[in-house]
């Protein structure tokens, strides 16, 4: 079983967003970067599949700045076998350009499965996985929370409004992962040591900007200051009155 996992370097979910002087990007000063949390589910699933099969290879691929080598090393420490960095100074806002570059890298890799997170928590694009699948002509199931693999055929579950879809697909395939699929493991000390010796190929690329132009990054609309209605059960009638008469939501 040969599995590729695409991982993205993203700001930690605790990050307080500060907009840079250009008014269009995140001010990265002091920001801590992590592996996109959804990609951790993808990596964990790949490692479990390899372990179950008793043999195989897990390759992580990331597109990003030189610093994304750290992101790849983190995945190698958790258990991936090798990594590829498609090094680009800027990641374009147009996810299709990212998908094209990743697809070109993955095309001739002979992968049985190509795994993605369902979304990157920075750009929230929700698109690169299924776009790569289309570009490679592979079947794709998105946002999976359960996976069973048989001979040449898999079954996945995905949450939809008010239910769960049970989806069958043939391999090779592209899957994108949602929370609930598994519980990602943490790196071990031994893993961290071993990661230093694992192969990491750096391939510089230049990406077209694509056809999305960023005009501005803006702070979200402020919520107007709220009020404490009161303390304990005694405050409930007043709360209900405010919800009816002031907020008009009841």
């Amino acid at each position, binding site marked *: 079983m040969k599995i590729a996992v695409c991982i993205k370097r993203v700001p930690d979910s605790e990050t307080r967003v500060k907009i840079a002087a250009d008014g269009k990007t995140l001010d990265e000063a002091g920001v801590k970067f992590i592996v996109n949390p959804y990609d951790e589910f993808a990596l964990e699933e790949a490692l479990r599949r390899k372990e179950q099969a008793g043999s195989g290879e897990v390759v992580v691929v990331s597109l990003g700045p030189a610093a994304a080598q750290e992101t790849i090393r983190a995945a190698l420490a958790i258990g991936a076998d090798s990594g590829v960095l498609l090094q680009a100074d800027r990641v374009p806002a147009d996810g299709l350009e990212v998908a094209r570059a990743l697809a070109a890298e993955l095309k001739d890799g002979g992968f049985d499965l190509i795994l993605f997170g369902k979304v990157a928590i920075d750009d929230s694009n*929700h698109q690169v996985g299924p776009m790569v699948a289309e570009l490679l002509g592979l079947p794709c199931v998105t946002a999976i929370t359960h996976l069973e693999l048989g001979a040449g055929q898999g079954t996945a579950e995905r*949450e939809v409004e008010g239910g769960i879809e049970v989806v069958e697909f043939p391999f090779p395939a592209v899957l994108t992962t949602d*929370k609930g699929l598994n519980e990602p493991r943490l790196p071990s000390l031994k893993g961290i040591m071993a990661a230093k010796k694992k192969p990491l190929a750096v391939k510089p690329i230049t990406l077209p900007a694509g056809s999305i132009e960023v005009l501005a990054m803006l702070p979200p609309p402020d919520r107007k200051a709220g009020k404490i209605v009161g*303390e304990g059960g005694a405050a409930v009638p007043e709360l209900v009155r405010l919800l009816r008469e002031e907020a008009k939501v009841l």
Partner: protein
Amino acid sequence: MTSVLAVLEQRDGALRGVSHEVVTAARRLADALGGTVEALLLAPRPDVKGVDALGRFGADKVTVLHHATVFARYAPEACARAVTTRATGGKHAAVLLAASATGRDLAPRVAAQLGVPLASDAIDLSADGDALVVTRPVYAGKALLKIKMTARPAVVSLRPSVFTPVERPKAGTLETPSLASGDSGRVVVREVKAAPAGSLDVGEAPIVVSGGRGLKEPANFKVLEDLARAFGGRAAVGASRAVVDAGWRPHADQVGQTGKTVSPTLYIAVGISGAIQHLAGMRTAKVIVAINRDKDAPIFKVADYGIVGDLFEVVPKLTEEIKKLDG
């Protein structure tokens, strides 16, 4: 003439509510571009409940493309092909879909097939000459990105509950062709395990009552279920990640960065501290109420109304008061 293609959704033979939002947004955009609205619905049967009323929301032309087996359940490959086929030819300035579970899956497939970009989760869109200007949340809603899309068509998915349906009557035409090919594609939805009848999805409910670690143990969620029930079928029970990870509540109910993003009319956070990742999922609610015994809990910073107190005292009282309203 230029046109905006609104891709709609149905379930069990009835149009889904989010479709009105998509048509409303399409109408607004078409007016700005001086064009028409074409709505496309993929369905197992030609007679979908609610389709006749689409003209009221501004659709000039509604096409129900139907096939009894291919479109019986969501067929990602067949649906993507059908939408792409329809959107090819340069007539459409934009293809709009809901950022629902289905729309999120479908939109990137369509965009990749058309070779054009996709903007996900738009909360605002307008025209700038021939280009589209879209505003969408990034960093889990901690910032908004305003972008310009120059490709034609631009594919845009719309965040649910943002584009309030507006009735703008048009004398819409309806056509109901059947899909020629019976090929569903390689990816097949075998079954849909439905949530218990009558239960609303947290992502779609107009009222969400969410509980966190303050509930102490899973059985105590009953006090929230009672409150939700008092709202008479309009409320769903949500949860913080802490209680989902503890196995008290299913992942489908989680609100926040790694759960659902909700924009209900009323969000009631009970025994939830208000971590930044939780706020990411609910800060766009119209009205937020927080019930927490810690007056310094960060949730009070985003709440419109707060009660400081023990939830086990406050929530049953609230349930009683709500029941009185409807009684």
